[in-house]
């Protein structure tokens, strides 16, 4: 290339930077958009692939009705095509959270070699009472709190855990849960709210519930290769592991049989033993009884003997007593005699002393007498017989002496008599003394005898007492013996009874065991692959939204880019017509000239493509990932650069630019150089069709006529303009339409379909009391209350399965109001009501019908757990957008699902003014309340998902708007530059800027209106297509465009046009009349 030529190109670029930038920008935008959208899915896919590889996501998940033991896990690991196998346990449980609400959690065992956890914060469990918590749903605040296995859990559930509560030590992500779905469960309200992972030792388990298997497969997740290999390998794995499971089955079967045989033998032994024992008992008791009887007899004999002895002894005693009495009598007589004797003696002594005294007195008296006599005689003597004068005194003295002599003589006689009496008394006394002494001796003898007899008797008594005691002991012994025997017998009998019972039990057990053995089912084994994991299965599906968008929009973009390139380059070639002619005249070849423009547009497009690719891939993917992060936040996005994408983008960019350039140049180059040098004749004016309608034409304002004619003058520009505007309109309509389809479902769902405001689930079946209580509490605030049973089921279809919320109610509505008061089952199309189904029939929602391609009259087979239920006939299809719903009546449920109809959920519709949260808190506090959902909350949750959708759409629409703007701007620019002379002329003629602007503006307005007219139906089509490409698992959309959206779209597009025109007006104003009119270059 010659230097001058190169300079020429550079100068051209510099001179027409706007034009160059237009090509650059439109291509950059188109490529950025295309490659950004195209790269989003691969990048997100690769992010997931990388994550799953790093986290060792399982390839197969084995479930067996028999569970697995360690040996089996080892055996599975040793199978061909298995790189790693690890047993795992899980358990769903009710967890009363901080607010006291009881929610369902899933506890899983931490696996080492598969499904490894990503630690978000905290640490992994070290003790078996520690756990890590669902990091998607819970924040760091939860670290340190306790996850309690609630009291309302069944005993089986509680038994499955070693501890009653587990301390949260960290937050994790698990490849098992790539998205926010936590699945369904049979407990509580059937919805799992979160997961915890515990060490295996935190579970009390006998068998692993499942085995996760990793294959040595290198293929990346989501690839066809992976899917095919996994599908191919499944059968082999199933056979292999079934064979392994059969080993235990057969062994346990044989063991059981042997055990039964053993048991039977044991039973027979036991029976024999029992018989023996009975016999032995009988014998033993017989002997013992006889011995006891003998003992009794002997005792009785001994007693008799003793009684006899006692009697003799008693006789002896009595005699002794008599003798003693006698002795006593004798003694007392003796004592009396003695006393008598003593008294006699005393009397005698007294008499004697009296006698003595009397005697002495007598003596004295005698002496005195004699003295008195002697004296008398002496006196007489003296007187010798002179007795005269003395005769009387002597006669008195002689008389006194005579008296005293007489007294003395009487006394002497008395004394002699008394002496006699006394001597007699003394003799009597002496005789009685002898008598008394004799009887005393006798008495002494008697006493001695009695003493001896008493001693004898005492000995006898002692002997008897001893014997009595012996006999008493004997009796006691006997009694003891008796009771002992009774006891022993009773014990033995009880033992026998026990043994008999045991035997009976044994017999029953044996029978049971036999029955069981007969009933034992072979282990049923299921090999599940990743597609049964909700997160995995949904992921590809969900990220395909972008792909859906990536399908049509980029084409649109490239078409428009091509259009822009084409018009721009055509314009450029037109502009440089004379230069081309000159160059040709100077001897440049057609190729060289072509090369100039090709290089011009090609370099702009090439640069645009590269910049667009780099920027698009990065910005689009990251912003889309941000939107997805709300649903799938498992790791940082890995941006995957795809050289092919870049090459394709480059190629398309070059086709758009160089191709259109070539087309534009070729036309011009066909002309001879001389022709080119001359200015190109502007397109000739022509009458338009409208003018034929003279009546109308005549009434048009002059300038309007001009505009009308101008519109059709530049055919190419008109077409471009209409295409651009209609494209823009279509995009905007689609954008608003997507918004309508997306946002309105929230309203339709929660205003039109679900009529209730609160749903309260109880842990027990609902009763009238509960209803009464609520009605009493809130009375008029509650409009209707329907009792239903909410349960979960799986609806399998080819290539996956959908979790369905199965609603069951009693069509008679025995409890509360009919379910139709709470849920408005109606058809999507015309809103007509869908009748409740009969027995054996089911209502499904339009989403499920769509997924499973079902129509009214078809049958559907639902699964609960791993169990397939009998098919049901679809009786109707009702409108629903969020989750999947199906409805059967209670009779159908009981008959086809084989479980009792237990309505536990209450749907409450409230008055407008009622505060659902106040009622909700009351309901939560009620006894047996398991969970209360406020529909307003649900609404927000769904709205959030919609918002992430809206984000992608906004991104697309934003880009589309930018594109539309470039197009409009470019076309406007070209329009003006093509008509500079015309506009300059008008200005010279004295048009005000406003007028000259309007002159052009009116045209673009007309074109815009035409574009809008074309664009609206195009938008409807595009919207339909885009909506068909948008899919989210949880919700589907109500494909519709609200009338107001058309209005908005039209206003927006006109706004765009006005906006571009405003910019163009300034350009018009800047047109230099003097310059423009000088000459035609």
């Amino acid at each position, binding site marked *: 290339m010659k230097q001058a030529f190169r300079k020429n190109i550079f100068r051209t670029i510099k001179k027409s930077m706007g034009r160059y930038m237009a090509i650059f920008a439109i291509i950059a935008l188109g490529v950025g958009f295309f490659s950004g959208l195209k790269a989003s899915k691969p990048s997100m896919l690769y992010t997931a692939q990388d994550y799953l590889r790093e986290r060792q996501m399982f390839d197969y998940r084995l479930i067996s009705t028999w569970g697995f033991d360690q040996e089996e896990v080892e055996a599975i690991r040793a199978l061909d095509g298995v790189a790693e196998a690890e047993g795992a346990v899980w358990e769903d449980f009710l967890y009363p959270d901080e607010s006291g609400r009881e929610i369902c959690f899933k506890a899983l065992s931490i696996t080492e070699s598969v499904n490894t956890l990503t630690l978000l914060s905290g640490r992994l469990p070290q003790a078996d009472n520690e756990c890590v918590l669902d990091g998607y749903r819970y924040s760091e605040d939860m670290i340190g709190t306790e996850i309690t296995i609630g009291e309302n859990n069944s005993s089986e559930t509680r038994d499955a855990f070693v501890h009653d509560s587990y301390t949260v030590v960290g937050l994790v992500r698990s490849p098992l849960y790539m998205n926010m779905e936590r699945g369904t469960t049979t407990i509580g309200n059937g919805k799992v709210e979160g997961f915890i992972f515990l060490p295996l030792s935190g579970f009390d388990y006998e068998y692993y519930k499942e085995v996760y298997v990793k294959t040595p497969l290198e293929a990346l997740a989501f690839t066809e290769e992976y899917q095919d290999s996994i599908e191919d390998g499944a059968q082999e794995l199933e056979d292999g592991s079934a064979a392994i499971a059969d080993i235990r089955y057969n062994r346990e079967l044989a063991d059981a049989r042997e055990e039964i045989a053993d048991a039977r033998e044991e039973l027979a032994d036991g029976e024999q033993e029992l018989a023996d024992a009975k016999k032995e008992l009988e014998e033993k008791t017989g002997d013992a009884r006889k011995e006891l009887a003998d003992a009794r007899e002997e005792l009785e004999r001994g007693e008799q003997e003793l009684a006899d002895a006692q009697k003799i002894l008693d006789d002896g005693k009595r005699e002794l007593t008599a003798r003693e009495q006698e002795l006593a009598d004798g003694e007392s007589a003796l004592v009396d005699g003695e006393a008598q004797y003593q008294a006699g003696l005393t009397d005698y002594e007294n008499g004697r002393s009296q006698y003595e005294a009397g005697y002495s007195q007598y003596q004295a008296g005698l002496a005195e007498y004699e003295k008195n006599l002697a004296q008398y005689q002496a006196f007489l003597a003296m007187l010798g017989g002179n007795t005269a004068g003395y005769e009387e005194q002597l006669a008195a003295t002689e008389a006194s002496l005579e008296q005293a002599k007489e007294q003395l003589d009487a006394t002497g006689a008395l004394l002699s008599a008394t002496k006699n009496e006394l001597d007699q008394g003394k003799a009597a006394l002496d005789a009685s003394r002898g008598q008394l002494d004799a009887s005393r001796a006798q008495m002494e003898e008697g006493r001695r005898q009695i003493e001896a007899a008493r001693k004898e008797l005492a000995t006898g008594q002692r002997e008897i007492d001893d014997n009595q005691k012996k006999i008493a002991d004997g009796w006691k012994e006997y009694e003891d013996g008796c009771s002992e025997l009774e006891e022993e017998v009773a014990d033995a009998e009880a033992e026998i009874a026990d043994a008999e019972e045991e035997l009976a039990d044994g017999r029953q057990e044996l029978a049971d065991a036999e029955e069981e053995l007969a009933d034992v089912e072979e282990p049923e084994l299921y090999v599940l692959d990743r597609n049964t994991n909700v997160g995995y299965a949904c992921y590809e599906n969900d990220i395909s939204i972008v792909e859906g968008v990536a399908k049509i929009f980029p084409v649109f973009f490239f078409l428009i880019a091509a259009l822009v390139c084409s018009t721009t380059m055509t314009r450029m070639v037109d502009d440089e017509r004379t230069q081309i002619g000159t160059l040709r005249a100077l001897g440049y070849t057609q190729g060289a000239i072509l090369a100039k423009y090709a290089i011009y547009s090609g370099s702009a497009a090439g640069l645009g493509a590269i910049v667009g690719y780099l920027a698009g891939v990065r910005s689009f993917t990251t912003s889309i990932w941000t939107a997805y992060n709300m649903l799938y936040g498992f790791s940082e996005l890995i941006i995957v650069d795809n050289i092919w994408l870049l090459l394709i983008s480059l190629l398309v960019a070059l086709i758009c630019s160089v191709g259109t350039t070539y087309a534009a140049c070729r036309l011009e180059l066909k002309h001879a150089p001389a022709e080119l040098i001359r200015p190109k*004749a*502007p*397109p*000739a*004016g*022509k009458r338009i069709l409208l003018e034929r309608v003279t009546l109308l034409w005549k009434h048009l304002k*002059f*300038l309007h*006529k*001009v505009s009308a*004619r*101008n519109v059709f*003058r530049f055919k190419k520009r008109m077409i471009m303009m209409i295409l651009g505007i209609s494209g823009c309109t279509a995009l905007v309509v689609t954008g608003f339409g997507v918004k309508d389809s997306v946002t309105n479902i929230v309203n339709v769902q929660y205003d039109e379909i679900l009529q209730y405001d609160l749903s309260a689930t109880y842990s027990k079946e609902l009763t009238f009391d509960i209803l009464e209580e609520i009605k009493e509490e809130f009375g008029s605030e509650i409009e209707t209350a329907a009792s239903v049973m909410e349960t979960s089921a799986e609806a399998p279809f080819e290539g996956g399965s959908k979790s369905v919320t199965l609603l069951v109610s009693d069509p008679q509505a025995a409890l509360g109001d009919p379910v139709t008061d709470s849920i408005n089952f109606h058809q999507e199309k015309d809103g007509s009501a869908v009748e409740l189904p009969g027995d054996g029939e089911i209502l499904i929602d339009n989403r499920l019908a769509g997924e499973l391609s079902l129509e009214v009259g078809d049958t559907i087979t639902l699964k609960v757990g791993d169990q397939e239920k009998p098919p049901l006939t679809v009786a109707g299809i009702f409108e629903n957008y969020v989750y999947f719903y199906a409805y059967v009546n209670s009779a159908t449920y009981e008959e086809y699902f084989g479980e009792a109809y237990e309505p536990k959920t209450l749907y409450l519709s409230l008055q407008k003014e009622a505060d659902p949260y106040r009622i909700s808190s009351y309901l939560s506090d009620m006894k047996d309340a398991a969970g209360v959902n406020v529909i307003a909350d649900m609404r927000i949750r769904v709205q959030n998902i919609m918002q992430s959708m809206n984000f992608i759409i906004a991104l697309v629409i934003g880009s589309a708007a930018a594109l539309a703007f470039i197009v409009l701007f470019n076309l406007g620019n070209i329009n003006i530059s093509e008509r500079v*002379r*015309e506009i*300059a*002329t*008008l*200005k*010279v*003629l*004295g*048009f*005000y*800027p406003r007028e000259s602007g309007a002159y052009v503006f009116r045209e673009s307005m007309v074109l815009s209106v035409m574009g809008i007219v074309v664009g609206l139906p195009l938008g409807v089509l595009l919207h339909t297509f885009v909506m068909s490409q948008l899919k989210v698992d949880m919700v589907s959309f109500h494909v519709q465009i609200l009338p107001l959206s058309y209005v908005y779209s039209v206003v927006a597009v006109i706004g765009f046009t006005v906006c571009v025109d405003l910019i163009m007006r300034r350009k018009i104003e800047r047109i*230099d*009349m*003097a310059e423009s*009119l*000088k*000459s*035609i270059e």
Partner: protein
Amino acid sequence: MAFIEFSHVNKIYQSGDVKIHALKDASFEVGQGEICVIVGQSGAGKTTLLNILGGMDTLTDGRIFLDGVEVSAFRKKQLANYRRNDIGFVFQFYNLIPNLTALENVEIASQLCKDPLPPVEVLSGVGLHERMQNFPAQLSGGEQQRVAIARALAKNPKLLLCDEPTGALDYQTGKAILKLLQDASRHSGMTVIIITHNSALTAMADRIIRVKSGTIDEVILNEKIVPVEEIEW
């Protein structure tokens, strides 16, 4: 005061670092109803002069009066009004609006001003009565220039400015056009300024202004005015 008065007009074009002094201290006068011919070599500054006078361009320095009003003091809006009501332009390349018929091209101008002449009459006056409904593309160069003149005349302007009206025409046609301009001036007393690089045409003018590299070389009042038909070049 003369009808048109240029006093010390300077025009400097500044493109980048390069300054082009297109008019240097240009001063002259033109009387009302005169036909003034401006001659000079290509690049002398004729068009610049005319454009400034016609309100299509602004001057750098100096003052211009038309009919006692200072045109050089006009703002944008006033300039537009000025062009609209006082000026008629005839260009070398006609500058007809291709999408409008001959009549419409006249109408678009006549609609703008306060007291326009009837377009049909004007067109008839320039001899295009038969071709009124034709589009420019259907007309010859001369005919197009006639339409352009009709467009300028229909506005009934105070001043008719013609920048090399015959430049793109053959001799005969050019002559006819000039005749038309001369007649228009003579009949309606309109002041007409014609630019040409053909000195022969100066014979038809009342006043001849010679421009030479931006300066007014000389201003000659033509004593002996020759009708266009008699001029030969």
